[in-house]
């Protein structure tokens, strides 16, 4: 996986499978500290301490269909390559938070990629889950909350092509406006 957008897609799918109702995805670009922070927080079923410790092991997975689980280890490796780190916090019954720090200007930092597309796929593929996407750079903040959109469109499904297109265009525009450059 060569883009952060793909990692976001991957990790957020974990949240959905853990039964999350709301997934918060936050990206913060801190130019002064030269840090890019990605946080994915959910209100799913969470993990106990032992599982949480094993989650970064590529040969551990909660799935039965195969014996490897590479999503988190690959993200962790991508962060460590740039002098950053991955921090996993989880509490049973409350949810899980994955917080990843990257060196913003580090040459090995993966580009952000098509975040708008990734968020759109998450929304389209998981109709029963709400997503909140925040992107901060300096004092600029972009925020998208599917709960608000759902309230507005009432009985129209959020996966309707026109709604998705609007969301995608809105993210593109919003990121351009705050000067997101990762």
């Amino acid at each position, binding site marked *: 996986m060569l883009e952060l957008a*793909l990692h976001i897609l*991957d990790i957020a799918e974990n949240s959905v499978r853990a039964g999350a109702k709301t997934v918060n995805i936050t990206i913060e670009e801190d130019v002064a500290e030269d840090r890019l922070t990605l946080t994915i927080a959910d209100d799913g079923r969470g993990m106990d301490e032992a599982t949480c410790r094993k989650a970064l092991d590529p040969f551990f997975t909660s799935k039965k269909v195969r014996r490897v689980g590479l999503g988190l280890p690959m993200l962790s490796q991508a962060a460590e390559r740039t002098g950053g780190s991955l921090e996993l916090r989880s509490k049973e019954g409350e949810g899980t938070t994955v917080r990843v720090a990257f060196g913003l200007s580090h040459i090995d930092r993966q580009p952000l990629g098509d975040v708008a597309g990734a968020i759109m*796929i998450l929304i*389209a593929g*998981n109709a029963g889950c709400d997503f909140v996407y925040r992107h901060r750079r300096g004092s600029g903040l972009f925020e*998208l909350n599917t709960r608000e959109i759902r309230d507005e469109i009432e009985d129209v499904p959020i996966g309707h092509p026109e709604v998705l297109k609007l969301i995608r265009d*809105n993210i593109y525009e919003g990121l351009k406006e705050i000067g997101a450059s990762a």
Partner: protein
Amino acid sequence: MAKLKIEDLKKIKEKVHAETALRDGSRRVKVTVHMGTCGIASGAKQVMDTLMAEIAEANVTDVVVTTSGCMGLCSREPLVTVEVLGRDPIKYEYVNPTKMRQIFKRHILEGEVQIPFVLARGAEIVK
């Protein structure tokens, strides 16, 4: 800050309401793109992008798109399952944007299974 325009959402709502009043908006086909780590790493996002673009272009409302996780056949990803209502689900293997377009036009719209790309018929059984 770019705020999602409420008027735009309202416009879509009214348009969709007008359209569904004209025809039965029930779902006819369910398409699942498998999006585990393995799927994403082998190009499932491009496949999903293509599928959504095709749906928007064809302007169909009876096709539902969902995502799912890995089913254990990581070496054959990207996998796409097409389930036409009342028929057995068909699983396609090694899907790419070109194959996805063909599957959409021939199978999803016209009901003709694209045999050369098929992995299996039926649903997976998880032990």
